[in-house]
């Protein structure tokens, strides 16, 4: 008889609500962050559609432009833009947490890991904008 019998009380389990993520702001922010990937995917699909239209020729391209002039699509794209920016910002800000870079025995401050990503983003955006708008 080496071991003992434990009689802990039957614990009461509080069921987690399906709407748990509405309960606290950090949870809501998390869900929004995750949902933003859907909008990123939407942007990717749009880009692919545009490329496809380019390949198909000028009529396909004009049809595409009509599609994109539709106010619903514009509204959707504005919302998507917000989410994509949100996605990028949260991603950049989380990167320093996942990367513990140490130089000379001290941890590199987060801003030096997040910062360069913002800078790179700004440069690439500027380059793309110049390419698209110069003509």
């Amino acid at each position: 008889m080496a071991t003992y019998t434990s009689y802990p009380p039957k614990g009461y389990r509080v069921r987690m609500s399906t709407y748990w993520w509405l309960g606290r702001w950090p949870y809501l922010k998390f869900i929004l962050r995750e949902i933003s990937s859907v909008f990123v995917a939407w942007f990717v699909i749009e880009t692919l559609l545009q490329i496809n239209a380019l390949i198909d020729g000028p009529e396909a391209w004009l049809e595409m432009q009509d599609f994109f002039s539709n106010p619903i699509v514009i509204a959707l794209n504005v919302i998507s833009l917000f989410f994509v920016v949100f996605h990028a910002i949260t991603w950049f800000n989380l990167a320093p947490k996942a990367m513990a870079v140490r130089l000379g025995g001290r941890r590199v401050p987060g801003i030096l890991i997040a910062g360069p990503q913002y800078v790179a983003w700004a440069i690439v955006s500027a380059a793309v904008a110049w390419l698209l708008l110069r003509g």
Partner: protein
Amino acid sequence: MAEQIALEVTRFSPERDKAPTVQSFDVPLRKEWVVLDALNYVKDKVDGSLSFRWSCRMGVCGSCGMMVNGEPKLTCATFLTDYAPGPVRVEPLKNFPVMRDLIVEITDFLEKLSKVKPWLIREKEKAPSEGEYPQSPEQLETFRQYSMCINCLLCYAACPVYGLDPLFAGPAALALAQRYNLDSRDEGKSERLDILSQHDGIWGCTFVGDCTQVCPKHVDPAGAIQQYKLTATQEWVKSLLMPWGGK
């Protein structure tokens, strides 16, 4: 300042109740009093059957974790005046089975802690007379933060993944595993890799990050887990490229 504040506490006695209820007590509102002082006031002077855990009341033993107005807190470090005029709602720690009043069952955490092998693993051990394993202050600094965990389990209360999936290893257990992985004296990285790099190990974490927000000791378990994800991925790539060894 008002003289009193209402304290709404969860009451639950499985011998008597089918489900938890709430009971309200009026307690003195003093500038220096923390929520724990209010609970002790109730237990000493009003209703001795109110049950809760506490010990050091200085934020180092980790016993007194509870939900205060919906946030996981150490009740010994939460001033009553921050909630004036009240009421202050005190509930048992979320995501754990409630045994009695404000007391939850935490054996699940202890099992998970044992699973991640939170001890120094070495091939060859030195005798004490042979002196210490050398470690520079910089090497100590790499894991010191993760060694500060007081096992208060506020992070488990904050983690929605643990709430939805009780099989998830959880922030504290993973952070403590990482504390040993990063310790320059430890040689157990590969042993722990197989245990941690599992669906219910680090890969269960979706980086909500709330665990780090509520941690009273600034352990940053979310950071520990994400860093370990990078490490585990690197090891996986290495094992693909160099299947013949290199562990």
